[in-house]
């Protein structure tokens, strides 16, 4: 299954969302791709590695991954290849791992600020948009997600809204709107 595609046009079954698209593998409008419970608030994580470990544990708690240690190592391995810190308090950590059950996005907000993420402007990270990618799901879908996230992060209004909004449902809606 692609990152945002539905196998054989069937929608993920939680009872909500648009009708099915038959006969084709359609890109999901992603109106509910990021759910409210995938928006995590924390304070005082302090360091990038603490934040990534927290994300890995939450991913397992939510059933998105099976092994927090393995997922954490995958996050760190990606950081070693190159910092995923961006600008204006944002980071886009991502991990491709066999422990990831399904392609998903977790949003971590820490208003205190997380140091050591190698951001392009040296500012601490307050919003991490984490991508979890199954081992088998490589290629253009990963690229599409990063492209959409990067495009969103170039929008001053999006960044401001993401930082200002605390309600998980509304944060999820902001991201879903961009991933559509």
């Amino acid at each position, binding site marked *: 299954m692609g990152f945002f595609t539905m196998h054989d046009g069937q929608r993920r079954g939680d009872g909500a969302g648009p009708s099915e698209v038959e006969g084709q593998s359609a890109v999901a409008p992603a109106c509910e791709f990021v759910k409210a419970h995938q928006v995590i608030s924390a304070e005082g994580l302090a360091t990038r590695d603490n934040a990534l470990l927290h994300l890995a544990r939450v991913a397992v708690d939510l059933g998105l991954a099976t092994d927090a240690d393995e997922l954490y190592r995958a996050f760190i391995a990606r950081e070693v*290849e*190159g910092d*995923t810190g*961006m*600008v204006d308090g944002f980071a*886009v950590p*991502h991990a491709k791992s066999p422990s990831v059950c399904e392609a998903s996005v977790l949003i971590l907000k820490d208003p205190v600020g997380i140091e050591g993420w190698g951001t*392009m402007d040296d500012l601490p990270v307050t919003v991490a948009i984490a991508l979890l990618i199954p081992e088998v799901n*490589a*290629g*253009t879908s*990963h*690229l*599409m997600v*990063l*492209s*959409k*996230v*990067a*495009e969103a*992060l*170039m929008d001053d209004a999006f960044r401001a809204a993401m930082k200002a909004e605390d309600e998980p449902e509304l944060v999820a809606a902001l991201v879903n709107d961009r991933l559509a």
Partner: protein
Amino acid sequence: MVSEKATLINPQGLHMRPAGLFASTMGKFACDVTVVTPDKEVNGKSPMALMAAGIPCGTEVEVKCDGADEAEALAQAIELIKSGLGE
């Protein structure tokens, strides 16, 4: 202004890592650097803009450099792309 075309060979396209490498390398030059795809033109010194472009593997891009050190910048840009941008 000088320009040259090259094809992206990175299996996962111009994602964060190669985009960052390209942008940081081009950032060392004084000239303007533009990457032209079939769909858009983006600032070659901006990792965010390059990522947002979502350029997939196999895309032929044109790199345009305009300024004092344009020839050197273009040569390095094309070499980077043809060598797989560090991957």
